[in-house]
């Protein structure tokens, strides 16, 4: 008797704790996602209604007028274009540099290999601010100030993680497979292109997505280098917009611009969620 009542009590406690866990997890989801939902709400609410205090998540009179207005108030189209160009160039540049280097570190023996690898991976622990001022001075002297190239080129150098991550993935490609290629007369470059890359596409995809996202979200460096309103990327254009709109009170168009900046990242995340999270998770494993 006493055991069954104990068991029943245990079961009730178990159920209560399971409910409590879900309540806690769900509350955390609400707090996490609410500000972004609110951004969407404001973006689709007529701007004059944003000044009425309101707590509803669904806009009363949904409209896309804010998006139209955003393009008229600020050069948002240029910002988007600049963001796409810089992010694609940085991501592609990193892959172009990291893939051959990671291949060499994974499958070749050469003098100084481990030391060079340590030098590259060591850059992951360096705060980028210490490179900021000399690089800025160099960019100004090279007349690359206020150009996208001035943003792109130094950013590609932060490829330490990419090389570290790809080396791990490339190591999985069996040596026998590569040796078979060599017997067939494939040179190193041929082996890389025809054997290693096709066998590690998921890792390469994860890393490309990650590099694109981090470039899309770059803040301080483009903020320093891009000066003209038309030259800015979306990430730093938003700051300009936010500073200007405090007098103008254009919260609707500002949130519409933020939505435009978030959508590409969200879309990539939705389609490549597993790859993105895998890449982040691998960054944390030893």
């Amino acid at each position, binding site marked *: 008797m006493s055991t069954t009542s104990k068991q029943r009590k245990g079961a009730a406690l178990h159920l209560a704790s399971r409910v409590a866990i879900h309540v806690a997890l769900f509350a955390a989801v609400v707090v996490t996602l609410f500000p972004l939902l609110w951004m969407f709400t404001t973006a689709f609410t007529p701007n004059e209604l944003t000044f009425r205090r*309101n707590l509803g998540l669904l806009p009363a009179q949904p409209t896309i007028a804010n998006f139209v207005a955003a393009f008229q108030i600020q050069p948002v189209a240029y910002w988007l274009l600049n963001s796409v160009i810089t992010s694609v160039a940085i991501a592609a540049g990193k892959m172009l540099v990291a893939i*051959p280097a990671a291949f*060499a570190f994974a499958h070749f023996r050469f003098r100084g290999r481990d030391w060079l690898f340590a030098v590259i991976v060591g850059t992951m622990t360096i705060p980028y601010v210490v490179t900021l*001022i000399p690089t800025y001075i160099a960019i100004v002297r090279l007349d690359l100030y206020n150009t996208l190239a001035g943003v792109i080129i130094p950013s590609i150098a*932060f490829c330490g993680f990419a090389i570290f991550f790809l080396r791990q993935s490339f190591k999985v490609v069996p040596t026998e497979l590569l040796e078979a290629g*060599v017997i067939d007369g494939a040179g*190193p470059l041929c082996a890389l292109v025809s054997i290693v890359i096709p066998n590690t596409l998921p890792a390469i995809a994860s890393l490309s997505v990650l590099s694109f996202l981090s470039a899309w979200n770059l803040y301080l460096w483009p903020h320093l280098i891009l000066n003209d309103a038309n030259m800015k990327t979306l990430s730093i254009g938003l700051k300009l917009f936010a500073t200007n709109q405090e007098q103008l009170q254009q*919260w609707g168009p500002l949130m519409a611009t933020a939505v435009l900046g978030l959508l590409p990242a969200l879309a990539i995340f939705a389609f490549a969620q597993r790859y993105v999270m895998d890449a982040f998770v691998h960054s944390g494993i030893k």
Partner: protein
Amino acid sequence: MFALQGRYAAWLFVAPAILLVAVFIYLPMVLNVGVSFYDWSVLRNEFTWKGVENYLSTLDNIDFRSAFANTAIYLAVLVPAQIALPLLLAFLMLRVRNRLLVRAYRAAYFIPTIVSFSIAGVVWLWMFNPIVGFLNTFFEAIGLQSHRWLNDPDMALWCVAAVAFWKGFGLNLILYAAALVGIPREVVEAADLDGAGPWTRALRIEIPMISPTLFFTGVTTVLIVMDEIVGVVDVLTEGGPYNSSSNLVYYLYDRAFRQFNFGEAAAVATLIIAIVAVATWLQFRAFERYVHYQ
């Protein structure tokens, strides 16, 4: 393999990466120390020798001191918070059986990580708006007092810290979740058989088992708090009001790019790397002592 022809190919393959890293990371790092002893004029493009003066005037500057103190607060608050709360959520997620639900939770928590600092900044700027922002509207609706949030010198730093936390916790969370799932089942089951309760199991088994991940996130979180919240600071408060939410990197930015005192800013950068080096060294010391590798 690739024994003969390979050697040259290997050097060719690593050359671009080595070159970029050397030119754009290591060289600037060394030059930064050099610049910190000079004054650089943007207009005339000239360097003037200043010796240690940049360091002395920096340490003497009251704005630097408040930025330094704020950085200490940001680190003291955000590093433990960004480790403890995600860890707690990861433990809770471990108890959820429905795999679809686990994936949904993970994705939801992770989303702020992919939001850029400036988007996070403007979204929260709008949330914090004292007149029509959501927070004050909500607070008044449920009978609480409204606040000035970012305009209040006593609150601005905490608002910035909250936004930085909001943006950063999801990354550590998915790392912990992955590490906890990776613990071999036998170990956990053995602990259960020995009659260990959930607390004992977490403290004695699970946390030690994932200590390499905890260590890794400790190091990266210090870097992120030092380096990257400058974006949030810039959009939300520009370090204000009255420098109450500024940090070292924002101070550096302000010195260099608003007051064009590049020498002093370089001195600040040198101090920052010294602080990060000390923090990382301390963590490595703790790592040697406590981290458990399987």
